[in-house]
């Protein structure tokens, strides 16, 4: 089983949107390596003929009538927003990140 490098942990952190510190990279690289080595044993018994189970309860799509039900109002929905403006969520800039 390949071990996980510090660079790989940095890449994972970026994918997961975690601005981890240099110290954390050192800590997590060692710990993630140990954890991943320990859990890799699932491969020992997971042979090709076994179907995967994603969920304990067999799920089927449930249809219902498209009926309007009470839901959160605008004020309630915005009540926990870090910033709001004109009845909307206010977010940092999302365009021009490549510039």
């Amino acid at each position: 089983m390949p071990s996980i490098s510090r660079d790989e942990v940095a890449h994972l952190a970026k994918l997961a949107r975690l601005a981890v510190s240099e110290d954390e990279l050192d800590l997590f690289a060692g710990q993630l390596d140990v954890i991943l080595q320990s859990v890799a044993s699932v491969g020992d018994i997971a042979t090709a003929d076994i179907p995967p189970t994603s969920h304990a309860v067999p799920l089927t799509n449930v249809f219902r009538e498209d009926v309007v039900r009470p839901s959160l109002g605008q004020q309630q929905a915005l009540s926990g927003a870090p910033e709001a403006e004109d009845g909307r969520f206010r977010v940092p800039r999302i365009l021009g990140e490549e510039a």
Partner: protein
Amino acid sequence: MTNDLIHATAAELAAKIHSGEVTSVEVTQAHLDRIAETDGKVHAFLHVDAQGALAQARRVDEAVKAGEQVSPLAGVPLALKDVMTTEGVPTTVGSKILEGWLPPYDATVTRKLKEAGVVILGKTNMDEFAMGSSTENSAYGPTHNPWDLDRIPGGSGGGSSAALAALQAPLAIGTDTGGSIRQPGAVTGTVGVKPTYGGVSRYGLVAFSSSLDQAGPCARTVLDAALLHEVIAGYDHMDSTSINAPVPPVVAAAREGLNGDLSGLRVGVVTQFSGEGYQPGVARSFEAAVSQLKELGAEIADVSCPSFDYALPAYYLIAPSECSSNLARFDAMRYGLRVGDDGTRSTEEVMSLTREAGFGPEVKRRIMIGTYALSSGYYDAYYGSAQKVRTLITQDFAKAFENFDVLISPTTPTTAFKIGERANDPMAMYKADLCTIPANLAGTPAMSVPSGLSDEDGLPVGLQIMAPALQDHRMYRVAAAYEAARGSFGGPSL
């Protein structure tokens, strides 16, 4: 009087309140006083809602006075794990990322409790996002085990179980993704039940691993847990995995169990959960429980479930994978913490800085493991294989239940360990969930009932009882019969 009220069971308190012998306000105040007196040492609560609790108690008292029919637990106080949303009352999930958040809605469990007249005393401490086995991962500091304040109360629901053991509440709610109700129950000498997956609505339960998360009742007696089970269980259209089936008759089963007859009941002892790594005092307590079940008439034999040896690794791939997806919602945009938004940074930068500041180390570890396990190139070896192990575990349960009505094991391999002892060794911490995880992966019900104290350290031990899906009542019957035969094992002194 106060002393009697905090020692009483929920069933006893309900009877006294409904007959007018005491008021819910008196009962509630006695528990609020107990919290004020002891929580400086225990730290079971993150938020105490004295005003809300007393207002609910007054409503119940008025209804009783007016001669109205009230529900079986009306007026009885309860400690609610801080993973359930409560409208207008802080809900942190033990995380800084939700510090100060006031949810705009109630979880279905919260709503059902309120409608049943249950008095919610406050919100209990937990490992951040329910990830942990010791409550040390709470961003707000650890909870201390009332039996020994230097030891952990289990996790993730250590606050709920510690509140029960400390007589701060007769009832509590937990959630169990890999053992977070049962393991804290075991190490605090209290009863904890993980119902069949889908038996209790997940709506408003802040998600960790959606295919495993299940809320359930915690109490000091089996009957109290059953009474609470029936309050919170049932189909809910707001939860897409809620089971549309009648609630198993758990209260009737608990009462039936109290007659002490288990004649003909077939009990399987899972052989995978013994031997190396099991504390001798835990093993002896388990053997004593097996003997008592035999005396009650149960037929006991060993059963082997070989795939259970792989449950822990499968769990620590599936749960982090689902959490890495679920926790993506904490994006600093719509609610919760936002860090670094100084007008120069992009959305993505603010998101990354916020998540870095708002999540603790265990949450970050699990998000990264999940991100890794789901990434192309590793998916088949990790997440895909773990899902196959899940199939094998479900099959092993099905085979075992062909020959046995219930399965038993110790709930956890050791008694409560010292605070700090496993904090820097994630794999050692994960092993606390060795025996509890299979039931989560298979979606089957399981509970922990105290089997007394370990003879070597005087700390509580739990007996785990597992049943097939939707047969929750079977384990209540066994647990109630065993509990009566076991007798009292005392309580912690605080």
